[in-house]
């Protein structure tokens, strides 16, 4: 599928994530995951164990009980500069690229390579879903009108105050099949910490698709197809002025 070329010199991407969720693997697989460092130690020299903690409390007239459990979940691997990391877990895999983000191709290729290593170690998996996420921070002068920067923002009637000290907006929107399958876009906006005289608007676009038991080749064709969708959504969300600001 043809893809729109999209590049901004001052891209606001702070983090890009490709995540694949799988049906929970047996606990014994954690031992297998510990073999991964041999394959990735040059690029990802830091491996940190991840665990899942569970606290259960029960209050009833007869008695009050509490218990805590901690189980190994997997490993997180960080590059030396901590700008790239991936998680190999019993319930899935994710690859994270922090700013500066170069482009889709090297980002996607690295995720694909690491997924292959994960699959080699854990063996057969049943995929549940996959997601592609772009976490953006749009830094704009403040005070200023949201509509100058965004085409998706909360509408306020004139009878109520117009000054936003902060806002939190989350939209769950259906995505039609454009090669990636039917999916859901979860768009989240809020204000991040910022320097004086500016506001930093979080634009967090999460594209999630069910992928029940997809084969790997099908899965990655669908992931590649998300590129077109995420580019279109991103461009459509910004005003021309905002696009100029990040160019």
């Amino acid at each position, binding site marked *: 599928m043809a893809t729109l070329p999209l590049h901004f010199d001052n891209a606001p991407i*702070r*983090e890009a*994530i490709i*995540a694949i969720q799988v049906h929970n693997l047996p606990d014994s697989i954690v031992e297998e995951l510990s073999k991964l460092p041999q394959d990735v130690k040059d690029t990802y020299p830091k491996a940190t164990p991840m665990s899942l903690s569970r606290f259960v409390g029960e209050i009833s007239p007869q008695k009050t009980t509490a218990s805590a459990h901690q189980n190994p979940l997997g490993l997180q691997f960080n590059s*030396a*500069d*901590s*700008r790239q*990391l991936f998680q190999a877990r019993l319930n899935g895999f*994710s690859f*994270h690229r*922090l*700013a500066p983000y170069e482009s889709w191709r090297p980002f996607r290729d690295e995720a694909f390579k690491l997924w292959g290593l994960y699959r080699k170690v854990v063996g057969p998996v049943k995929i549940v879903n996959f997601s592609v*996420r772009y*976490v953006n921070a749009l830094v*704009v002068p*403040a*005070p*200023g*009108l*949201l*509509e100058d920067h965004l085409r998706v*923002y*909360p*509408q*306020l009637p004139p009878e109520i105050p*117009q*000054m*936003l*000290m*902060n*806002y*939190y907006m*989350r939209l769950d929107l259906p995505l039609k099949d454009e090669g990636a399958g039917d999916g859901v876009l979860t768009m*989240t906006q*809020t*204000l*991040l*910490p*910022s*320097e*004086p*005289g*500016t*506001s930093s*608007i*979080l634009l*967090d676009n999460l594209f999630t698709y069910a992928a029940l038991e997809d084969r790997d080749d099908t899965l990655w064709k669908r992931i590649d197809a998300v590129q077109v969708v995420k580019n279109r959504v991103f461009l459509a969300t910004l005003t021309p002025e905002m696009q100029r600001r990040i160019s």
Partner: protein
Amino acid sequence: MPTIALPSKRVFSESRHVREEITWPSGSSSKVLTFFRQFIAEAGSTSRFLQIAKTYQELRSSLDTCATLADNWDSYGAAKPARHSIEAADRFLQKLFTALFMPNRVIPSAEGGVAVYFNCDNKTAYVEYRNSKEVILAMFDDQSDPIIVELTENDADESRALSLIRSYITS
């Protein structure tokens, strides 16, 4: 039309009695913090960037706490951190956040001032903004001699400190 409010210029409170609990910034920044904490709790746990942003907010709160200290805060006669030390540390934190490289702690200095600490495995690095306007970068571990670098409160030296600490901590 909705307008984004101008975030209140960061103003550190005058020294008062030492507070026992961490205080949060007042005004719009506290609302930013509240919203942001809710957001992290609900949806942000899988994003490394949002975790870094949360750490940044917590460190700024620690800096606010440093700004409220009074003289003799440690009961050994330490001077309270001066306003310029706090403001310099705040600028450094902003620079670190932009670079997505977060320290572990911000604490008052017994020498008078405030220090920004980094820890990784057996390595420690800190930048200490002293009330005397000296800026000291120290890096040490249990394998080699400490490295001490004298800096000044300017942008170029802050960038240099960031670069030195990053390469030391991540090597």
